[in-house]
């Protein structure tokens, strides 16, 4: 394992090191010490490496990640794993707003709570939140799955497209065109598999499923009041 001291090396040097790991490199496991809430830590990675950040991270931690497995031992600022393509980002604490925003693939696991707009514009990413999510989560969510083991704030899934949402607790309110849907066996199976992959010990049978009513896919004047 290679240890990198963020405070001593600086953001550019740390990211450059992580971004330059080639397929033939024997260095596959990294520990980042003293992150001190730095922004843009471990962003733009594109290799099958393991990166552990030992402390809190600022904005856009793991942004646009491809293939890397990143663990944050602490809390994360805005936009953790934003636009992730593949790989995995795990946060042991809480995450601020827009966690997993526009993510296209991979898995984001937040052990604690996520703030507002979790999964906004998600495009294929899977997000599993151990706690609760704030308002406007999964806003304009296009594809992928958002799993909330706690409660969801107001306007969950507003203007949702094809993403699938699973919530165990209470939903304060659903957004425009987001409706509750029946949990069929295939949904239980996919949720169970997702929970297992995320390492969350919850029973899929306790969740409810939400998704798009697909009533706003074509703008119609009679639906203007729905927005």
């Amino acid at each position: 394992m290679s240890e990198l001291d963020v405070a001593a090396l600086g953001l550019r040097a740390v990211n450059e090191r992580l971004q330059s790991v080639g397929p033939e490199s024997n260095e596959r496991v990294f520990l980042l010490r003293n992150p001190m809430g730095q922004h843009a830590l471990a962003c733009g990675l594109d290799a099958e490496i393991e990166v552990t950040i030992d402390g809190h991270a600022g904005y856009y931690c793991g942004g646009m990640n491809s293939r890397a497995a990143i663990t944050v031992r602490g809390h994360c600022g805005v936009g953790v794993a934003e636009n992730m393509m593949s790989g995995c980002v795990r946060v042991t604490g809480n995450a601020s707003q827009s966690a997993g925003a526009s993510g296209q693939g991979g898995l984001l696991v937040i052990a604690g709570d996520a703030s507002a707009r979790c999964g906004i514009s998600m495009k294929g990413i899977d997000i599993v939140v151990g706690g609760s999510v704030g308002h406007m989560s999964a806003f304009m969510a296009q594809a992928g799955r958002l799993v909330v083991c706690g409660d969801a704030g107001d306007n969950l899934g507003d203007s949702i497209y094809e993403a699938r949402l699973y919530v165990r607790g209470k939903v304060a309110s659903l957004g425009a065109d987001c409706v509750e849907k029946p949990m069929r066996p295939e949904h239980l199976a996919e949720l169970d598999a997702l929970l297992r992959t995320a390492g969350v010990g919850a029973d899929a049978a306790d969740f409810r499923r939400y998704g798009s009513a697909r009533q706003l896919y074509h703008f119609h004047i009679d639906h203007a009041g729905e927005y």
Partner: protein
Amino acid sequence: MSVDQRALRPSASFPPEVIREIQRAADEGIYDIRGFGAKRRLPHFDDLVFLGASMSRYPLEGYRERCDTDVTLGSRFAKEPLRLKIPITIAGMSFGALGANAKEALGRAATAMGTSTTTGDGGMTEEERRASQLLVYQVLPSRYGLSPRDLRRADALEIVVGQGAKPGGGGMLLGQKITDRVAAMRTLPAGIDQRSACRHPDWTGPDDLAIKIVELREITGWKKPIYVKIGAARPYYDTALAVKAGADVVVLDGMQGGTGATQDVFIEHVGIPTLAALRLAVEALQELGMHRKVQLVISGGIRNGADVAKALAMGADAVSIGTAALVALNCNKPVHEDDYERLGTKPGFCQHCHTGRCPVGIATQDAELEARLEPEAAARRVRNYLTTLVLEAQTLARANGKSHLLNLEPEDLAALTVEAAAMAGVPLAGTGWIPGRA
């Protein structure tokens, strides 16, 4: 009984087009959505003139003495700034709104001229990347098709905050243009109306933007210039804030800028004219001591070499063209007139980009229509047009004694109207008066 034509007194408040629009709204119950930019008369570069040479200003010999045109964009922080041979770039227009042939033709033309073209909402197509030697990759609120791979193979990044045709508005690509390919690039079902968000999903305001810029620089190794594109809403403050947030280049789009599909009420009633916006942005840069350090690219109604030269004289480092480039491709050309008629319009008036039924094969995803635009021939037309713009701008610069287009200055200009004088900050012709200044 014949009607006495002299008795037909039109109403200034309710001319025929207003009556028609009220009745259309009454029939349909929805606002008018269209393409193109503002159609109303606005103070513009036409309202400025160059003074030319005189006893105290020596002209350069046309065809004999050099008048250089090169410009470097993104030299503030980026390790690899863009070095353009001409100060005219092709503006961001999406694959989806435009067909692949149009995007390829624009890329080829820009490459031939040594300048850049720009992606749009929906991501980067392979045709566009192959055809474009210098390609600016837009990072838009929708994040459709955004990928780190494309960030790295772009030559510059452009964070889009706003657009001149609709500052504060998002986008709408109507279902008829959403083919399987467009849908796949955007991760959405084919055939449905696709809304492009008006705000970025993971940042709000200049403090967040500064961090977002750092992230993009980290992902691209601090090599790529980062542009921030703003619509002409509050350009003085927005320019200053973009500089503060760390932009290498500010792209400012005035209200004459075009769109593929937006509400008419938005196009005509939101934002300020390019002329006024440009002056405010230049003032902001000058007051910060960043003029020419953070480059300013202006767009919105650039049509000819005079517009180019006037924009540069007012302080822009380059201009960007969108609608005019499409017109050069053949937009609104009097060919296939039956198809214009089917859309209820005529060549010269068409604004039906949003329908996907573009008669000349530009703003369409229909294979039959798109075949009407042959990329090589279309690129040649745009190249010819760009060449003409450069020659015209050089002609004007030489007449003002300038050996480089960027040496043009406000002192070379006079305004023909009080409005233009006030907006552009140059004296009303025949006076030393700039309205609003002591």
